[in-house]
């Protein structure tokens, strides 16, 4: 990994390579970086990351509005049912299409029947700028649900995309600290939505608020905050 620094839109990024490579190598520009005319510049404000080996450049920034990307897990709410599938709100510009059979073991005779308002945990199957996104409630390569599907009970709340990315990491401090004191289930959508389920409503509310409060805390502060919350119980 190379250096990291804060960039703003319009800042030109120096993509000259250190070693004597050919001028015609391919550069991979990730989120927040684009080629404008002859230059490579940042198009979002955030921390610039680069990988000189893979010649990749990208900007990490925190946002609230989700732009779907293939393979990402999302938490969605069914808003309509059409002939071929459900329309699911995942917080992106267009609602996502969830085919009727995109569930583990679903056949024409035996498929789930989701009501409007149902919450699902799904995987983004198709996402590009010209089509409406498509999601599926199973891993279409293995045919297994792998945790995707309808989410029943519990509570769902929204958070920033940056917090969602941190939560999905298995080492996320706030979830680990909470988990060592309280049993709970959690599903994190990279679209900025989190679902949690515990035995009692009071506990669910405690966990939801702890997660929301952890947005601006670092690992040590998270652990401290959770410790204080658990002691008050």
């Amino acid at each position: 990994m190379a250096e990291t620094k804060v960039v703003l839109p319009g800042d030109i990024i120096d993509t000259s390579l250190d070693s004597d490579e050919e001028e015609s190598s391919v550069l991979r520009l990730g989120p927040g970086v684009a080629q404008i005319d002859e230059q490579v510049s940042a198009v979002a404000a955030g921390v610039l990351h680069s990988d000189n080996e893979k010649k990749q450049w990208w900007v990490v920034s925190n946002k609230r509005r989700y732009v779907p990307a293939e393979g990402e897990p999302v938490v969605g709410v069914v808003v309509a049912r059409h002939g071929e599938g459900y329309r699911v709100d995942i917080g992106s510009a267009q609602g996502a299409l969830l085919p009727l059979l995109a569930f583990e073991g679903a056949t024409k005779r035996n498929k789930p029947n989701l009501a409007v308002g149902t919450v699902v945990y799904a995987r983004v199957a198709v996402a590009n700028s010209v089509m409406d996104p498509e999601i599926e409630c199973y891993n279409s390569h293995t045919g297994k649900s792998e945790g995707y599907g309808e989410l029943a009970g519990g509570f769902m709340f929204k958070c920033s995309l940056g917090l969602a990315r941190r939560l999905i990491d298995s080492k996320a401090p706030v979830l680990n600290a909470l988990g060592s004191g309280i049993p709970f289930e959690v599903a994190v959508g990279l679209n900025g939505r989190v679902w949690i389920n515990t035995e009692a409503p009071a506990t669910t509310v405690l966990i939801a608020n702890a997660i929301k409060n952890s947005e601006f805390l670092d690992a040590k502060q998270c652990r401290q905050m959770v410790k204080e919350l658990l002691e008050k119980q």
Partner: protein
Amino acid sequence: MVVEIEPSNIEREFLLEALEKGIRVDGRGIYDYRTLKITCSPTYGLVEVQLGQTRVLARVTCEVTRPFPDRPTEGLVQFNADLSNLAAPGLDSSSGKPSVQEVAVSRMIERVIRQSRAIDTEALCILAGEKVWSVRLDLHFLDHSGNLIDAASIASIAALRHFRRPDVTIDGEEAIIHDVNERNPVPLSIHHTPICVTFGFFGSNGDLMLVDPNLLEEQVQVSSFTITLNSHREICALSKAGGVPLAPSLIQRCTQIALTKVDDINDKIQEALMA
């Protein structure tokens, strides 16, 4: 267009399940208001109120105008509420007509302040039949996270109390309006300060009740009730428009709770004006 999404089944069901145990999703008690922050700008008449994440800006201005012919000794009070897409998705109509919610809040504030005669309109008279002050209250909603009415009533009253109009001297048939840099501007004459307290009701009979609904609670509630009280413990207005019918004893209980809340809120307004 940007649209508002309805709450999911899980959110609705959890909210009710928790409320049955007296728990609210943001951790508040059922009689608790969210954190109230009132900021009075250095400019007279400009006040910003934050109630939880709901944010509203109130602005009072005035100008000299002719009175209505049938009320020659009374000044005018005008209201305007702006509830746009800035505050929440789906509020702008393409035709430019105000949305249902905008009209509802605007009418409520107008009722609460104008019809309860909170402002002394006779004190706004300069020269009977010729010149009176016209006071204008503009409300701009910046962030809609539930309970716009209570936030708007607090902002309106604070802005009206914060406002200063130019001083006037009457010399026989002439009125001299002093520039604010020459003579200190004077406050409006306010008879009383009405404050709205809104309750949300849940459950099939509306028997679960809470104060100051946040956005999710407002979307799920089956009935809503606003009572407007002033610091003299008088009821200025009661409003229950539609929704599940409520027992009179419930209304009585709400009134008692509202009395304590209004005292707290008036104290906070006083503190903010002094700062």
